[in-house]
Every structure is written in C-alpha cells, then in structure tokens.
C-alpha cells in the first residue's frame, strides 16, 4: 500500500480527474472531500460488508407461509 502524509487542506490526485482533499481532522475523524467525474462510484467500504451480510441473512430466511406473505404484500400494494 502506498502511504502518504497530508495536512489539512492538502490533496492527493488519482489519475487526472480524481482529487481527494483532507478537509478537517477532529480526534479520530477525518473529513475528506472528493472531486471526481460524475460516473465515478464512491462508496464507504462498510456498505459491501452490509450487503454481504444481508445476502447471507436472506439466504437463510425462516420457514414461512407463502400465502400469508403474498397476501400481506398485496394488501400493502393496494394501500
């Protein structure tokens, strides 16, 4: 991993078009500003972990009554 030290207000650039600036540091929290082309996807890394967990939860769904579940959903859609 490349490791760089930056001060508040300083930036790094990735390729020509992505710029990450250190906005503020408060205790353990660092605020970053990111400038990137619109189509660049920027995520908090935890989101992937949450999605993995949720897929796993969904795969181990409990036994349930499909008729009741369907009826509830249809009632909800009608509202």
């Amino acid at each position, binding site marked *: 991993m490349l490791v760089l030290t930056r001060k508040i207000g300083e930036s790094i650039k990735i390729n020509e078009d992505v710029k990450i600036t250190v906005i503020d540091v408060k205790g353990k929290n660092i605020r970053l500003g990111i400038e990137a082309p619109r189509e660049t*996807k920027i995520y908090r890394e935890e*989101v992937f972990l949450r999605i993995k967990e949720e897929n796993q939860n969904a795969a181990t*769904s409990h036994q349930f009554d*499909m008729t009741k579940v369907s009826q*509830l959903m249809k009632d*909800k859609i009608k*509202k």
Partner: protein
Amino acid sequence: MKLETTRFGDIDILEKQIIGFPDGLYGFEKEDSFTLLPFDPNIDSPMEWMQSMSSPHLAFVVTDPHLYVPKYKLKLLGEDKKKVELEEDEPFLVRCIVTIPENYTDMTANLVAPVVINAQKGIAKQFVLTGMEYDTRHYLLPEEMRTSAAAPH
C-alpha cells in the same frame, strides 16, 4: 432441463430461463446462475424466488421494488449497462432481495443492492447504489401491519 431444488424438488426449466450472474452475488461470488421461479404456483404473488442453478438449497425471495417504493430510482450509467449487455434504451428488470425473519411481518428488502436483469440476454448483476437514501433493510410493510411493531400491552 431438470433443475434440482430443495424447496420445490426437481423442476423442468428452459435454457432461456437461466440467468447468468458473471460476478455472482455479494457473499456468493461462485453462484453464477439463477432462475426466477413463481413464488407459489397456486397463488398470484408480487414475490418470486431466485433459485440457484448449482446449489439446490439456495433460493432468495425477490420482489420488484417499484411496487412498494414508488419513488425508487435506479440510474444505470452507460458502463453499468455494459456489464449486463444492455443497449442504451433497452428495458431491464429490477429485483431486490428480501429477507424474511422469524416474524415474517418484519420482512425487509435490500434497496441498496438491487439485482438488475437483462431478461433478453439472460445476464444479471447485483449493483450497489451510491448515496445514502436507501437501506439494506427496508421494511416492506408499514408499521401498522408489522405485528412486532405493535405497542406492548
């Protein structure tokens, strides 16, 4: 062809009903093909099953988020569309994976990571939306329909 499933036994499906997931699903990266099955052949339901082609026990409940979240917006960029081989204005299906806990009235849909399906070509991918407006556990039923949400007496 015959497909072995834990929930429905052996079923017949057509080759064209197979949907390829080249990247798998998050946490299930090796599951590279699924098929959509009716939730219950005897009833009309807004839900479907997304059954793995290779793991008989693995089936997800899925639903079209637009039915429950009318404002649900999924903007696919050009490069996203390429990943599922969609032409610019070609229609696609969106399905969110549903988690059904012990109290099924508490079921939730993962609105952050919808499955986008190119039904014509039989290719799909689970996308991750950027931004904060949606939850991985969006309650499908409003509070008054959830038995666990009722105030204790």
